[in-house]
């Protein structure tokens, strides 16, 4: 059995991916999971990826967004948002 990558490390790697892609590409949860599998092979499983996404969202480092489908992005002000009066 391979040494599994920790949730924290997977979360950091996911965060880097999302940050680098900001403004260029939007990641869905499954895209991140697949990217982790590609990177870590069988050292990461679905449960770890899921927990890493949960960590990213609960900590506020990333947010879910909806533009047709649901994506995971760095928090930012969207173009449509009106300033709060």
């Amino acid at each position, binding site marked *: 059995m391979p040494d599994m990558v920790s949730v924290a490390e997977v979360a950091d790697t996911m965060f880097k991916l999302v940050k680098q892609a900001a403004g260029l590409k939007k990641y*869905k*949860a*499954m895209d991140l999971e697949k990217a982790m599998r590609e990177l870590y092979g069988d050292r990461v499983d679905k449960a770890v990826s*899921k927990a890493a*996404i*949960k960590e990213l*969202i*609960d900590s*506020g480092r990333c*947010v*879910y*967004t*909806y*533009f*047709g*489908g*649901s994506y995971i*992005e760095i*928090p*930012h*002000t*969207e173009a*449509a*948002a*009106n300033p*709060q*009066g």
Partner: protein
Amino acid sequence: MPEQKFPDKLQELKSGAWPSFVKEIENAAQTSPMAKDLYGQLNQSYNEKIGHWKHGGIVGVLGYGGGVIGRYSDLPETWPNVSHFHTMRINQPAAWFYRAEDLRKVCDIWEKRGSGLTNMHGSTGDIILLGTTTPELEPIFNELTAIGFDLGGSGSCMRTPSCCVGPARCEWAMYDTLALTYDLTMTYQDELHRPAFPYKFKFKMAGCPNDCVASIARADMSIIGIWRDEIQIDQDAVREYAERGLNIQSVVVGRCPTRCMAWDSKELFIDNENCSRCMHCINVMHRALRPGNDRGATLLIGSKAPIMEGALLSSVLVPFLEIVPPYDDIKGLVNNIWELWAEEGKNRERVGEFIQRVGLANFLDAIGLEPEPEMIAFPRENPYVFYRTE
């Protein structure tokens, strides 16, 4: 009504036999500046024939990927009170049973922190709270959870499961739709609040083939109550219907879609082998006919409204399943479907469209189900199920 530079075209929508949303907005506008500006912007839209809403994609509450649908006015200077007008979807109780006390609490929160306008209920089944601002989202969420409510689903997640009134008030319920709805909602909290699918996935539970929640047209997975044995007939009651003037030959036998019934003015015969369980005869003569006692549900998959690609109706996936807690059969199947679809589905591809793309035979293979004759709507017209010669 609010002062505006356009002729008031909304008043016409108050005429007619049905309740009017214009009347409700007017009432709310007496005390809610948001509702007042909503009326104004809506009237402007009716005059200009242009929508003035911008769809917001980021607003939500911490940790959740659904439940809030962002909305902004593109005329914030003209209608400042609807500059932010976000919708919140609240997970409804199964079959929409409430205590009046709880409804009052929800409305109190919404009058204090939102427009006061609600939609009971949206097509997803949720309580829809219409119109609030971004800073109010977290306080509303906190206050709602404190009284036992949670947000519902939106985005690429499992949407809030919904069901018909079921055995709570309907004698035709073939299984406990409320219990299954509650169980699925609680089991799949993660899938409800953390979008991880290619697109939305809806469950709708209907207790019998009357399908009062229209699950066959609106749910990615429709779970429709059914019976396997024979329709129970009380021949005396059938004759009573005839004596009271019901034209059984024309109204019941003549409208049977599979022509599996006969009436000789004394007795009603049903060829149950050829009955498609449409419920028509039972609905017409409910004192004389009852569903059989071997009860369960048919699981169907793939229906959707025509967003993206065309509308689809559900197809049979499992012809008959007993629906008993802890529902492991259903959950096992659902997990297999989700795993395959999440892995292989394209962005914004509903599971029905996915099945069309990969083919039902491949789909069944991948989720570990054997083809069944019931999966075919019309023999020889659906070439997607193949039988191997032994």
